């Protein structure tokens, strides 16, 4: 498995020289992981396949905009896949209104789709690499079951019920464990945030 630094070098090779063999390594590493994430997040296998391909196309196209000071490659790829998943869900269902699911996508769906603003302030950009290291350090200190519940909450937080079924736990227990895991991560990160 390529290291974080190796991944950065591969992205750089794609960005600067359109290096196909570097891209092939990135594809082989990330596409099956992105697909696995999307399937775990409830995306049907065929669409997950397509979105994983689309994620990698985006990596190819936007490699030049990747900024290693801001995030690790895996974090960048995750946010690309996440945004494509959110867009696909919005396209599929339209935007859910108060009365349920509308037939047509909301005219502002593109604007509303992503909760996280794209461009960070300059000071936030510089904090990126430090944050990546702090988060990974904190994650190593989480108990395996807390890590498991944290990962599950990435797959589909709307359906904690499904997590409860998967872990054979009462729903309330799942919710409180997610809060505990997130709170633990937050405490471990304290001092790293403004």
């Amino acid at each position, binding site marked *: 498995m390529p290291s974080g630094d190796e991944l950065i070098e591969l992205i750089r090779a794609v960005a600067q020289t359109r290096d196909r063999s570097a891209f092939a390594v990135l594809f082989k590493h990330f596409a099956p992981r992105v697909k696995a994430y999307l399937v775990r997040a409830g995306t049907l296998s065929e669409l997950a396949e397509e979105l994983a391909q689309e994620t990698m196309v985006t990596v190819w196209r936007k490699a030049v905009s990747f900024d290693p000071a801001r995030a690790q490659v895996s974090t960048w790829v995750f946010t690309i896949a996440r945004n494509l998943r959110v867009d696909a869900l919005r396209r599929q269902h339209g935007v859910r209104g108060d009365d349920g699911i509308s037939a047509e996508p909301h005219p502002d769906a593109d604007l509303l789709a992503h909760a996280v603003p794209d461009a*960070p302030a300059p000071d936030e950009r510089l904090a990126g690499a430090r944050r990546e290291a702090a988060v990974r350090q904190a994650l190593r200190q989480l108990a395996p079951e807390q890590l498991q519940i944290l990962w599950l909450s990435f797959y589909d937080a*709307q359906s904690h019920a499904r997590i409860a079924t998967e872990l054979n736990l009462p729903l309330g227990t799942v919710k409180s464990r997610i809060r505990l895991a997130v709170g633990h991560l937050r405490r471990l990160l304290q001092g790293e945030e403004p």
Partner: protein
Amino acid sequence: MIAHHPSDELLLGAAAGTLDVGAAIVVGAHLEGCARCRASVHAFESAGGAMLESIEPALMAPEALARRARISQVAGWPRQRPPKPSACIFVRSSGPRLPS
């Protein structure tokens, strides 16, 4: 100006992309003006990157590259077949090489 910060659970939902549209709008509007919560979301995104690294990879379907025609229309995507197709997994007519 900001009286209430979204809960960690909501910020995690924003990073994971699992919020419904209403919540995404509210959290997104808050994030525009709150560097502290943006930092939290970015930290959760980093956790998402770590999740991607640790997940058990799925097999890519052999027929997936049937969509190559569409993909090759993407601006800047390499169009021509390389000399050794096996060296380049994304243009093989038989599909991508499965992870070993």
